[in-house]
């Protein structure tokens, strides 16, 4: 067969096979359990939060304001402040407290996203991980995959729920409820892509003292802490005193 003819037929074959595969390949860019492409959100931004533990007094204003803003059922939390008592092993008289605000880390590699079987949870282009709760089937797979216990099945909606950095407020130029209400100014939110933003400046200034939770989990969290002791980087090794709310769900 003529070489150019063979070449032409080859091309046609490739094109026709390609055309049948195109719709599939566009959705299968990610291998099993790989991160799918980000969508929606504010283009060009990368939202992140810095929590200055030296300023947190454990007043739970953030917990309350988040619950009011986002109408979370009683006993469930998008954010909260865990409290610990730390006793010095060498000097038992010396006891200090640690207030640890916890929320979704809006990881750069969020393990909760690829597991979702209906793409209800996804990462926006601005880094915020959100849930389309009209699509969510409430399978709870993302709740299992999150390494921070930041997700839960909302008892009212029966769908997955979590902190969204109050993306609805950010889009309107407002601060997240927890940041707005923090009496000590411990929570700072900002755009990492802006070198002159307060968060970028603080991260640069305190570079040596910045920590994230479970740094080795490979999730690249985007909630940073100043003043977090080494002992709290990973799963807390200590005495538990879990609190179970007795209140009825309203």
């Amino acid at each position, binding site marked *: 067969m003529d070489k150019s003819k063979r070449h032409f037929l080859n091309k046609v074959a490739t094109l026709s096979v390609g055309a049948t595969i195109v719709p599939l390949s566009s959705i299968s860019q990610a291998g099993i359990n790989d991160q799918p492409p980000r969508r929606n959100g504010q283009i060009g931004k990368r939202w992140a939060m810095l929590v200055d533990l030296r300023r947190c007094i454990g007043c739970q204003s953030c917990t309350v304001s988040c619950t009011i803003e986002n109408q979370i059922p009683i006993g469930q939390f998008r954010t909260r402040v865990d409290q610990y008592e730390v006793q010095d092993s060498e000097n038992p008289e010396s006891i200090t*407290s640690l207030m640890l605000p916890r929320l979704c880390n809006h990881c750069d590699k969020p393990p909760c996203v690829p597991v979702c079987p209906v793409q209800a949870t996804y990462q926006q282009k601005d880094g915020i991980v959100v849930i389309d709760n009209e699509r969510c089937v409430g399978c709870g797979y993302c709740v299992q995959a999150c390494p921070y216990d930041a997700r839960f099945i909302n008892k009212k909606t029966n769908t997955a729920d979590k902190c969204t950095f109050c993306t609805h407020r950010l889009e309107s130029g407002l601060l997240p409820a927890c940041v707005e209400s923090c009496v000590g100014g411990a929570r700072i939110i900002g755009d990492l892509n802006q070198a002159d933003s307060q968060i970028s400046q603080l991260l640069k200034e305190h570079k040596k003292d910045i920590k994230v939770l479970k740094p080795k989990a490979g999730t690249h969290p985007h909630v940073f802490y100043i003043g977090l002791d080494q002992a709290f980087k990973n799963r807390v090794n200590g005495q538990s005193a879990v609190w179970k709310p007795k209140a009825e769900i309203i």
Partner: protein
Amino acid sequence: MITEILAPDIEIVWLPWAVAYFFFIGISLTAVILTLPAILFNQKQSLGVARAAMIVMLVCAIVGPVALLADIHQPARFWHFYAHITPWSWMSIGAIFLPLYVVASLFYSWIFLRPALLESKGKTGITGAMTNALAMGSWEGKRLLKPVAIITLILGMIIALYTGSEVAIVTSRELWSSYLIPVFFFTTALLGASSLSLLIAYLTHEDNITLTNLGRYTHWFSLLSLGVLVVWFVLAFSTNGAEAKSLALLQHSAQWQFNLLLLVLFSLFSTLFSNGSSKLILLSALSGLVVSWMSRWFIFIDGQTVPKYGAGFYTYELPLGTEGLLGMLGVFGLWLFFTIVVYELLPWTHKTETQEEVKS
């Protein structure tokens, strides 16, 4: 020393329904394997095993997905699985193959029963009406039996792969994040399948050869499951992986130690009693079922009581309602109902030409 002063108790999200799904679907897909000696390799002495395993495969393939549907918190939205197919999620892959497997297992048992259905044609009463309706023509479909068995087997293995992988990729849970999880699910499912088939074979008056064969399977499958446990411990002591982290949790939880002790004890019962008298064999089968159920309960329910970040363990009490005891009674009731319906209304014991042919 660190003491947690204030941290909430977080509830589990994969409820006992998930345990029931993994229990029934695992048993169903491994029961396919038990039917193969008679169907694929024409072993006449295995026909009784195939009959019992076929009932187990069929009923568990129906009950499993019902339990799964009950476990998702928005069951009416199950169609979202098909409207938004997600090839990178193991659960989505499972959602595609699960209905295919269920249909294949229904078709497999139908083809297996066809000769008997044709012979029973024309009978009266409920059974007659049922067989007449199911006969659908006068073709025997003998030639289809082996290919359908192989297709059902392949689909079953895909379900085994997805159920195991779905759990094993969850790196945030030490107990789940192990390559041994799919293997352990598989061996304990085999144990459950042989045990349940043994129970069904006993209740449906299969001959002693069948009971002895199933007893032998149960013996080896419980040894295999114990073997996987031993490998898990070897890994836990010799590596720094998820198994080692789970071992550290095990050392801190009396509940986990008790679970493990029961698991080993029942596995031993199942192994030791499987060669005894018919009553002891039954005890072996019941122990095998306990192992199959308990291992999944331990992995899912107790596995979810480990805080991802906080100290100690969360609490779990079995609720009495549909999310707990009542739900589980219901799902076992459903299994019993379907087993009775499938056994009573279909001609399992009918000596058909195909079955005779296989025998000779």
